[in-house]
């Protein structure tokens, strides 16, 4: 029998429907793969084998009766940011020690409703703050990819590094992830996987640990464009429990995948051509445009003049919202508590011990920019800049552009423990330079693997779409996937 874990999600679905194998066998294959790989990759922070096998058994019963849902029997990994009832939910932070929610997030509920099976919870940067998955309380995740001729460990990107690594290393058929500034798309690009951040409001934020509420969106990471589309259809949908959830019908995203790009206009923003951009990224970008043109798209140069201000504005807005959201971790309601001489002492000691350095740094920046006398100069200013960033995109779309093509990241995956990056917080932040604009404008963005660098490491392209037009992104990403026609699976060393 072929290795069941190597099947795409779409093929696993077909195999289950055709009764070529059972959901229990498929789940068992993934659980074995996790057991073998996790000591090396550290992608999972909690594995739930009993629950997984129970869910798989229930799926087999449904499949036997021909009553399977759209994801019936498909084993998924869940980012530790999603509330899962009775199961480890700690945002990979020490401060949520032992937290097991009494509720289930809407997105995961939607996946279980459609028949999916939960394998466990995936590692991530603490509270989704990071671009390398090195800020996790549970230690860094290791990228399944290594540079040719090297045994050095590389980062999988962040913050959804566990999700990306697990999908790439065949430790789940697909994974949930979240994206506040690039946390789905950057790790997808670093691991040769497909990741989409939907339009803000498409997926419910209810039951997902909050980082920056006006930017956070859930989305899938998967091994193919079609797999990502299948997961997205299940994850999306209106939810009365999230006041920013949008009441729109959810299309069958998978039906859009083979639609092609004939007649579409693809925008190429000149501001994304950064000084010192590596030649291989530049080449990848041109190649992507050629592929889209060959399939009937028109390419148009556009200008998004406020691009360079997106990242600095983000580093005001996101920490401000984080400082407010993370005020709830006080040692009273859940998680870690460090006793002190009085209540304030308890708060301060608990938060000092429970939060990691990156999280504390961002809470402090957020506290500062929201403090009396600085609010207008920082926060209001940043929100005005955000209006201008959004307007840049609106102008491009009004000018006839259907989607925008950019590189996903400024480089391929870098090493675990990179000293230059550790010494300079801003250098690490630059990883999100191409992705963060999309969150600031609330738009959908997809990262799709498109090539490899000189050392055989995957590189991704990003497509940015109009609000709620994820279908065009799936169609265009599929053209890139098909045209690249490359094997983006890692060479198994673990």
């Amino acid at each position, binding site marked *: 029998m072929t290795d069941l874990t190597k099947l795409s999600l779409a093929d696993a679905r077909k195999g289950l429907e055709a009764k070529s194998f059972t959901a229990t066998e498929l789940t068992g294959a993934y659980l074995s793969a996790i057991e073998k790989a996790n000591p090396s990759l550290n992608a999972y922070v909690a594995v739930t084998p009993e629950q997984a096998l129970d869910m798989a058994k229930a799926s087999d019963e449904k499949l036997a009766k021909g009553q399977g849902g759209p994801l019936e029997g498909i084993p998924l990994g869940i980012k530790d940011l999603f509330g899962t009832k009775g199961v480890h939910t700690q945002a990979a932070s020490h401060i949520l020690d032992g937290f097991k*929610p009494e509720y289930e997030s809407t997105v995961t509920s939607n996946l279980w409703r459609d028949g999916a099976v939960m394998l466990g919870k995936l590692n991530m940067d603490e509270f989704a703050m990071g671009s390398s998955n090195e800020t996790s309380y549970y230690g860094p995740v290791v990228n399944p990819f290594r540079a040719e001729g090297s045994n050095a460990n590389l980062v999988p990107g962040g913050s959804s590094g566990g999700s990306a690594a697990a999908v790439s290393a065949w430790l789940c058929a697909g994974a949930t992830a979240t994206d506040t500034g690039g946390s789905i798309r950057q790790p997808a690009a670093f691991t040769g996987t497909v990741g989409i951040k939907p339009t803000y409001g498409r997926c419910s934020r209810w039951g997902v640990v909050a980082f920056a509420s006006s930017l956070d969106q859930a989305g899938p990471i998967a091994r193919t464009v079609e797999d990502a589309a299948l997961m997205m259809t299940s994850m999306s949908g209106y939810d009365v429990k999230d006041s*920013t959830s949008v009441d729109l019908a959810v299309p069958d995203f998978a039906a859009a995948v083979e639609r092609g790009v004939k007649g579409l206009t693809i925008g190429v923003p000149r501001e994304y051509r950064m000084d010192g951009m590596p030649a291989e990224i530049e080449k990848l970008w041109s190649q992507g445009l050629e592929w889209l043109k060959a399939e009937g798209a028109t390419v148009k140069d556009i200008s998004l003049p406020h691009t360079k201000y997106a990242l600095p*504005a983000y580093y005001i807005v996101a920490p401000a919202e984080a400082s407010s959201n993370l005020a709830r971790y006080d040692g009273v309601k859940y998680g870690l508590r460090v006793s002190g001489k009085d209540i304030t002492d308890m708060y301060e000691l608990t938060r000092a011990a429970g939060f990691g350095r990156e999280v*504390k740094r961002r809470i*402090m920046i957020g506290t500062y920019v929201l403090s009396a006398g600085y609010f207008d100069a920082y926060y209001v200013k940043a929100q005005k800049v955000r209006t201008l960033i959004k307007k840049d995109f609106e102008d491009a779309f009004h000018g006839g552009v259907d989607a925008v093509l950019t590189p996903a990241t400024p480089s391929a995956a870098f090493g675990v423990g990179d000293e230059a990056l550790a010494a300079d917080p801003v250098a690490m932040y630059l990883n999100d330079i191409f992705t963060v604009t999309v969150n600031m404008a609330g738009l959908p963005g997809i990262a799709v693997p498109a090539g490899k660098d000189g050392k055989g490491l995957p590189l991704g392209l990003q497509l940015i779409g109009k609000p709620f037009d994820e279908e065009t992104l799936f169609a265009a990403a599929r053209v890139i996937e098909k045209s690249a026609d490359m094997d983006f699976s890692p060479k198994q060393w673990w």
Partner: protein
Amino acid sequence: MSVDAATVKRIARLARIRIEESEVASYQGELNAILGFVEQLTEVDVEGVEPMTSVTPMALRRRDDAITDGGYADKIVSNAPLSEDNFFMVPKVVE
């Protein structure tokens, strides 16, 4: 704008995060690096620009003022480090 050591301590106090004297200088350096980075926003002309309040053009929904949830205090406190009779327990706050 940059922050001095006293401001770093004040921010930490406002954020209810204990930082030790030995940590102040490194936090100061990191916060100033970030503040230096965001400083470039001063170049942007925002005259007459509305600050963004919602990325999607929508008004926040309202719902009927009715009780739709609740009645499970035991579940609410089930993750608390310290609770008694379905109350969260904290150090004494009033003398």
